């Protein structure tokens, strides 16, 4: 039997491989020219500082499985259900059929322009966490005026836990990403002052709290509990920020040479489109709703349509890959019991 998977990020790749290994035929659709999804933009992973591209290579290598057909640069234009089969029309003219449909459309990062008071796109030395990852890949950190930053601030919860941006949810990963990036930055800038501005430190995964502790102890990262209210720029193109140091109870102002916005996660535009095409419900956090949060985490309100990875909620790579394996199992179970 065959399964159509939409999205060849980590979740799509892992589910494709697991299903292929189990003997199912897999049609894997990816809108970009290469698989890997958001992982392509990452330098190192937390908590073990594994090379993101090494993991990416491993995932992509496994797509050479004879049971997997990869459709790159393709998007579904029409999804029909006919006599228990899904028919997916692609923009390149191909028509794919399968007994089950797996949506692995993933997330997209919050567009930092929307948080205008933080000055992204207005002030030169305000960057996002993704841009910092690119800096790390190139091992080049400098301000817009070509200097080594002496003080860098990481701003947590940008586009997360913020009803002003209509994102009520916690993106979960930004806290630990900030800690990881602060450590990486320290290795490049041994003398700089590095601060994280947080509302709550949510170190949910194994090894994360240890990393937080190490950031304080070994890497001399400072943590300020307060949410930024606004930022401005001075003549030297430095960023002036305002927050309350809530643990002291006084407003605080500070000059930064570089400000990094920890942008949160939202449902990707592709996933949103797929939800509209297939009638999958969305949860209140804007991600796709799973049928049951305990027992049916890969199923949806549509029979035969499954979810894997961060299209159902913000997930780290560990959880994404686990979720993909779980989706593969769920789909195999489903295929065993459908009437053809």
């Amino acid at each position: 039997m065959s399964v159509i998977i939409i999205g060849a990020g980590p979740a799509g790749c892992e589910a494709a491989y697991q299903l292929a290994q189990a003997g199912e035929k897999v049609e894997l659709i990816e809108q970009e020219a290469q698989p890997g999804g958001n992982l392509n933009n990452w330098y190192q992973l937390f908590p073990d500082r594994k090379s993101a591209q090494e993991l990416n290579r491993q995932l992509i290598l496994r797509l050479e499985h004879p049971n997997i057909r990869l459709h790159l640069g393709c998007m579904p234009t029409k999804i029909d259900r006919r006599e228990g089969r899904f028919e997916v029309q692609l923009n390149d003219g191909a028509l794919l059929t399968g007994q089950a449909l797996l949506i692995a459309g993933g997330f997209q990062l919050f567009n930092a322009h929307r948080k205008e008071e933080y000055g992204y796109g207005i002030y030169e030395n305000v960057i996002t966490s993704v841009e910092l990852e690119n800096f790390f890949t190139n091992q080049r950190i400098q301000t817009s005026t070509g200097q080594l930053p002496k003080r860098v601030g990481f701003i947590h919860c940008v586009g997360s836990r913020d009803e002003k941006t209509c994102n009520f949810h916690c993106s979960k990963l930004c806290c630990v990403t900030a800690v990881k990036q602060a450590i990486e930055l320290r290795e490049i800038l041994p003398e700089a002052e590095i601060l994280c501005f947080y509302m709550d430190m949510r170190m949910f995964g194994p090894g994360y709290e240890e990393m937080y502790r190490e950031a304080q102890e070994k890497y001399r990262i400072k943590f300020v509990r307060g949410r930024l209210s606004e930022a401005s720029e001075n003549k030297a193109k430095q960023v002036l920020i305002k927050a309350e140091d809530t643990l002291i109870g006084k407003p605080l102002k500070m000059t930064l040479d570089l400000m990094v916005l920890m942008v949160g996660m939202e449902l990707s535009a592709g996933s949103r489109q797929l939800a509209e095409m297939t009638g999958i419900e969305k949860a209140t956090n804007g991600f796709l709703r799973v049928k049951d949060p305990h027992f049916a985490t890969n199923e949806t309100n549509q029979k035969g349509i499954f979810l894997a990875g961060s299209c159902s909620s913000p997930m780290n790579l560990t959880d994404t890959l686990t979720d993909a394996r779980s989706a593969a199992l769920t789909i195999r179970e489903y295929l065993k019991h459908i009437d053809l």
Partner: protein
Amino acid sequence: MMNFWGFSIAEARVIDYDKNDKSLAEMLAEEMPTTRLCIGCGGCSATCTAGNLTEFNIRKLQMLLKRGETKDLRDQLHKCMLCGKCLLVCPRGVDTRKMILFLFRQLSEQDHNS
């Protein structure tokens, strides 16, 4: 207070949650449910004009109120200029300005009745 040989017994600093009167906070929460939503991020107090010039701290004030520590309220409340910047910043949508007005009204009613 007793004062023998230069020693005195200081009043405890502890928030006595059992004894403190939290009725004003309960009334506030009833009247304005958004005030339940504060997560103490301090965005309001960071942008607050009054807070940048005086001891006024709107985040702390409402938290003290919730614990029944209402002593400061009377001295602090009038420092708010009702500019509403806190309202624009709050990530939880707490109606901070209305909260101040409500507390003003309650306190003046209390004064009126006593």
